[in-house]
């Protein structure tokens, strides 16, 4: 009796209005990757779909986690990931070069990827535990700031500006949603405006500085770094409204478009599927993110709210920065497009976010049924 209602119950309450478009998007991504590989399904598409299936299963498992366990494990998880980040840094220093991953033999573990959802989790736990009365004081800012700054600094050292920014963005959004005084953010933005030029000259590496310069004026270096942006715009622009047709994209097939299967997969898609394809992709991401924010707003308590809001922000950051980049509105940073780009780590991170959102969604359904906080 229980077993009979359990299984359909689990499936019945799944957010299919999100999972179905997302699955379609991933399949669409597989088609684009097939074309990017010159018509070879095995090269990218097969592993893309397998990863999606495996990681979706993982997300469904994650969905079943109880709230108490999640909240309890927030700091330990944060601590472990932080240690791994330090280990990467140490190995890199010993090995005499920058390194982003730990080789476990069977896979390469990239702790900075895990840090993106983990920082959201840790900060959500922090603000959930903080007495409301202290939100306006330094005790709301300084510990959270430290939680955020340490991993960012470590990732920056790797150096991986894109990931550091992703971590920072997720953290700041949680702090914003936690209700810290608005003037702090205004002040932070002002400070950023002052620090950014300084960082540009003293923190950024030459290649990063060059990317910023070229972003300002891609034509200044049409065959160098600006090449990426220029070729990407050519691919999108030449696709027109309806695209050149599946398998007909000359920019990707003749290798003019760099990284047609990872960072610039959107350009590969847009060349062959046109504006229509692009709007479809935007629409799916819109559905997912809107649902994510909805989950956050429906969430039964402060911890779940902040957790869901932060996860949505992390996913949003991927999509927004990647698309701004391929359309020439942001500098080239190595950030892939979720569910379309070929690559395991971004898929994993986004699935963690998705799983967490479904988990929070499950908590609120439970709370709504029982009338208590689960």
């Amino acid at each position, binding site marked *: 009796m229980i077993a009979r209602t359990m299984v359909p119950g689990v499936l019945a309450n799944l957010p299919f209005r999100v999972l179905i478009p997302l699955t379609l998007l991933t399949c669409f991504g597989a088609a684009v990757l097939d074309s990017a590989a010159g018509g070879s399904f095995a090269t990218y598409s097969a592993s893309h779909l397998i990863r999606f299936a495996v990681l979706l299963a993982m997300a469904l498992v994650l969905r079943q986690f109880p709230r108490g366990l999640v909240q309890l494990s927030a700091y330990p998880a944060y601590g472990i990931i932080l240690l791994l980040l330090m280990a990467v840094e140490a190995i890199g220093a010993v090995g005499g070069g920058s390194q982003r991953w730990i080789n476990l033999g069977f896979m390469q573990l990239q702790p900075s990827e895990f840090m993106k959802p983990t920082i959201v989790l840790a900060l959500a736990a922090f603000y959930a535990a903080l007495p409301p009365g202290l939100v306006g004081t330094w005790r709301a800012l300084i510990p959270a700031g430290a939680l955020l700054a340490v991993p960012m600094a470590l990732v920056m050292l790797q150096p991986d500006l894109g990931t550091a920014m992703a971590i920072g963005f997720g953290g700041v959004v949680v702090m914003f949603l936690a*209700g810290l005084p608005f003037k702090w953010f205004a002040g932070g933005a002002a400070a950023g405006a002052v620090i950014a030029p300084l960082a540009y000259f003293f923190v950024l590496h030459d290649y990063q500085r060059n990317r910023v310069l070229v972003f300002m004026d891609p034509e200044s270096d049409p065959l160098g770094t600006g090449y990426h942006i220029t070729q990407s715009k050519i691919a999108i622009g030449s696709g*027109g409204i309806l695209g050149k047709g599946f398998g007909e994209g*000359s920019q990707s097939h*003749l290798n*003019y478009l760099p990284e047609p299967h990872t960072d610039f997969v959107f350009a590969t898609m847009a060349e062959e599927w046109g*504006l229509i394809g692009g709007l479809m992709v*935007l629409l799916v991401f819109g559905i997912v*993110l*809107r649902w994510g924010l909805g989950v956050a707003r429906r969430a039964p308590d402060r911890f779940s709210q902040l957790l869901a809001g932060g996860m949505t922000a992390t996913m949003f950051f991927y999509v927004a920065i990647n698309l701004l980049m391929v*359309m020439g509105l942001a500098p080239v940073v190595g950030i892939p497009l979720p569910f379309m780009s070929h690559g395991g780590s971004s898929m994993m991170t986004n699935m963690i976010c998705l799983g967490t959102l479904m988990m929070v969604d499950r908590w609120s359904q439970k709370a709504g049924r029982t009338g208590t906080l689960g």
Partner: protein
Amino acid sequence: MPLRQKFTSSLLAQSFDRRSFAVGAIQGGIGLLLAARMGYIAVAENEKYETEAESNRVNLVLIPPRRGWILDRKGIPLASNRADFRVDVIPERLVDREREIAMLGDLLKLSPVEIQDLHDKIANASGFQPVQVAEGLDYDAFAAVTVRQPELPGVVPQRGFSRYYPTGPAVGHLIGYVGAASREEYEVEPSPLLLTPGYKLGKDGLEKQFEQVLRGEPGARRSEVTASGRVVRDLSMREDVQGKPIKLTIDGQLQDFAARRIGLESAAVVVIDCHTGGILALVSMPSFDPNTFANGIGRVEWKMLNDDDHIPLLNKALRGLYPPGSTMKPMGSLALQRQGISPDEKINCPGGYQLGNRFFRCDAVHGPVDMRGSIEHSCNTYYWSMSHRVGYQNIAPVAKLLGLGKEFELPGTRQRYGTIPDPEWKMRRYKQAWTDSDSLNASIGQGYVSVSPLQLAVMTARIASGKNLRPSLLFGQPKPLGPDLPFTPEQLAVTRDGMFNVVNGHGTGVGSKLQLEGIQMAGKTGTAQVRRMTSRGAVGAWKDRDHSLFVCYAPAAAPRYAMAVVVEHGTFGARAAAPIARDVMTCLFDPEKAWAGLLEMEKTWGGTPSERLAAKYAAYTATFGTTAPKVAPDAAVEAALAESTTAEPAAPTSGVTTGAERGEATSPMPGEAPPSAFPPLEPEFGPAP
């Protein structure tokens, strides 16, 4: 505490609602921005990006047109094209110059000297101007480069056609050469063809003059290429249109023969058709090989050209100016007859001529000589005496009438017209009054007189034909005759008799009689003094020896061919110039006999001019290797060809007037004193037996 009260659970929940709404709005806003941006790129700018995608995808490669041939009068090519595998580089597109050149050097087995030259050329090239690495490759070497092309960005292997001059150095000065366009040429004519690897345009001579005729229409190949330049497939192809040929009056075989017959001398030979004025041979040796010039000039070659005291870059036939010496005497005899001197009047030659208190010494004691004898025996006393009588001012105009001191309308040539002096000229040039001794010197083709080998050939052709012939180079387009020459047939006959006897009587050129049945040659020797010397003739340094000249025509009875030969520092006219003239003339009537003799001679000279140049290049490479100084830029090489007289070492004592004024020069050359600064000028040393 109002501050504390601000933050309560319910207030924070409200704040979350507001702020999450704001975050959602921002996200939505960015989503709309992205959609709008994409719409703008894909719709509004679609056309622009479609064009760019297309220009990425499609590569339009110009195919250099095959150049029009340059033919001799019989239709035999003096310049043709041969199918060829070649490799060029586009410096701008090289990614790692050192590595790629090293790799090319390996694949094509280039020598260190060639690699050095390649580095030089790339350093001098600008932007997309292609630089030739090698041509005339065999298929294996070509294929080796083609296969490695992905590792060699900016390297362009292709098959095409390259210019080929079958007789090499023999036509260097006549035809010029071709080469890749320079930056200046591209600025004058900014056509993409000039940047196409493998395309070469005329750099000198006829190749330059008739560039637009010879060029033709380039073909084009549209192909789909990857970002790394690999051709995926050809889309369409347009064949090139070969340039039009030009046909010259030159007799290719004769030109080659004359060039080779000059051997180790520094000399010029000009042969003119006495019927039409067409130039049959226009030779200046030693020369450069236009075949190797087309590949760009390397350091070793440049050093070789500059070290040579025979000045290979000087076209001596058109730009070498020499005192004509006794070759002026036939002209002089016509001038004297016009002044009413009877050809039969005899002048006694006691071995010289007394002018005031100076004695001008003749070559020999000739005794009584008439006009015919004065030519036959080259008696200076006769001309000194007669010109003193009629006045030099009556001789100079006849010299000009016969073409001396004149420039001729010939395409693709740069001539210098030298000097036929007169009192007015001397005053203008040197601010000095004309003297009697100037007249005496000028009357025997010395002193201020300087002429080019071409002028001497025209003079001889006019005397031989009696017609005011004008030289031409383009076949079938003879120049109309000038105004009739003011000589009666009787007057011309006297002069021709004298010239006939020079070769066939007891004159100065009997050693060079034609060894042909029924064909006789008439001529006149000349030995032009280079500098005042105590010892003369064949002794002393090469640079100090006299120039050897010979003018002639044949057959004597019905003149068909006229010729002038000038051998720089060749000593007596009869010794160096006349035998060359005899053999070249023989080649016109009995080529087999002439070639047989030449091939024997070449065995003692170390082979043909091309072979000797190659041997010399090898020797230079062995000696200097990569230590030779850098080549001057293209422009300097062209300037050296154009103004090659400046290459003549300016020895102050040199009487060679190749360094002298071009016509209306306004001031004396620095360091060069007028010839009258060392009087009395030694007259021409006499006839060789």
